[in-house]
């Protein structure tokens, strides 16, 4: 009996130990997930944003480009440096689930167009303005916010923060926050509004109208 009890005790101890190890591992990975980005990550993301700003400024100051070429060049920079897939999920949030696979693919494509042009045609006008990277800080779960500031022109002093996330070893922007206004948040509000009264198909229809309408003006 004594022996049996001991064996149970042993088994409990083993189970307890395994449980402890497992929970330690688990909390360890959890704390890794909730950790702020470290100094290296912050520096890496900051460098990426600084490089992108240089590309945009180069496009803006290149006198040989026509307006159209300039717009395309800035759009290309946006295409390469925003993580549209992640952004599409973020802006739809809960509604992502209500989209079929085909609708998701279409949504990402439409959203990508909308956003790249928004970004391109805005920056295109800021030819007499400069941008400087003024700071960067680590956010939870490895994201980094890189802070930039517009110098000169009508928007002198305006802050534009880029939320950077590393995926597949590449840092890309998942949000741009202009004077505290998050693009992701502003789009999420609008999509929620439209989807509360309509289907994903209707939203997609509306987006493609917007996109084709704006293309005519080019």
């Amino acid at each position, binding site marked *: 009996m004594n022996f049996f009890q001991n064996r149970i005790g042993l088994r409990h101890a083993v189970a307890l130990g395994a449980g402890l190890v497992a929970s330690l591992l688990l909390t360890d990975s959890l704390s890794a997930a909730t950790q702020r980005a470290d100094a290296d990550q912050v520096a890496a993301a900051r460098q990426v944003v600084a490089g992108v700003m240089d590309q945009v400024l180069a496009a803006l100051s290149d006198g040989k480009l026509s307006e159209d070429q300039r717009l395309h060049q800035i759009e290309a920079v946006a295409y390469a440096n925003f993580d549209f897939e992640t952004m599409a999920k973020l802006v739809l949030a809960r509604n992502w689930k209500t989209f079929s696979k085909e609708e998701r693919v279409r949504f990402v494509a439409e959203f990508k167009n909308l956003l790249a042009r928004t970004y391109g*045609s805005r920056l295109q006008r800021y030819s007499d303005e400069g941008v400087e990277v003024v700071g960067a800080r680590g956010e939870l779960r490895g994201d980094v916010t890189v802070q930039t500031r517009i110098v000169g022109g009508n928007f002198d002093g305006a802050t534009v923060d880029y939320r950077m996330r590393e995926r597949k070893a590449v840092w890309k922007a998942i949000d741009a926050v202009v004077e505290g206004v998050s693009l992701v948040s502003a789009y999420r509000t609008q999509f929620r509004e439209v989807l509360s009264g309509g289907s994903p198909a209707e939203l997609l229809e509306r987006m493609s109208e917007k996109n084709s309408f704006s293309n005519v003006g080019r």
Partner: protein
Amino acid sequence: MHVRYGAVAVLAILLSLGCASAGGPKSLDADPWEPMNRKVFAFNESLDEWVIGPVSQGWNVVLPDGVQTSIKNFFDNIFMPAVFVNHVVQGQFKEAFAEDLPRFLMNTTVGWVGLFDAASTVDIDKNYTDFGVTLGRWGIPTGPYLVLPLLGSSSPRNVFGKVADAWSTPYSLWIAPWISVTIRAVELVNLRSLFSEEIEQSREESIDYYSFVRSAWTQNRRYRVLEAQGKEASPKFDDAQVDLYYIDAIIDADADETVEEYESDSEPTPVDEKQ
């Protein structure tokens, strides 16, 4: 004087309404006055389409950009004392004494009564704050989103703040009403003209312009208050208090699989790389 008492009475009503509905769900997107707001918003939009827009286009034709910028500088400068006072009341002394005050003194003198932004040439930062932000900094809630005729996005706290700020700008309440209305109109048309491309583009790009404007305004005001409180001002939640950047929990595991699968399919984007 009667007009002023009337305005105070309206404010009192607005504030009490604000407090009454502040007891509801703690969602920032709460827009209890949406039906009314949307009507006023539509009114403002048609006013802009038929009057303010065309007038500002004419303004833009007549006045060179440099003149428009000078007019904007003038109005920015005339508001600087209010910015200074608000920064002091907020406890933001560095901004008040190292930036707002020298900026105002310099632009008023060297910058020809504010027409030229001389302070920027010597790198004195340009700040903006107002009494609505000051109230927020000390914990007064903003109240529901409110669209005012002609003046646009606001809230009960902000209406109160605007009236308070008007006392510290040298015009509007101290001079004849028609002059102050004219001055405001000039300021408005000038701004509308300077930012016409941004305004038209936002209107064209948004999927639902009303909720875009509400979201942008609300976010910007929240950011200014956080800034005045000296807090880290990166946004964390959307208007409905859902996490902005981590939504794994609300996209269920099932959907997550689809996402991964879908991502690998769609890497060479199937639609629309033709431009």
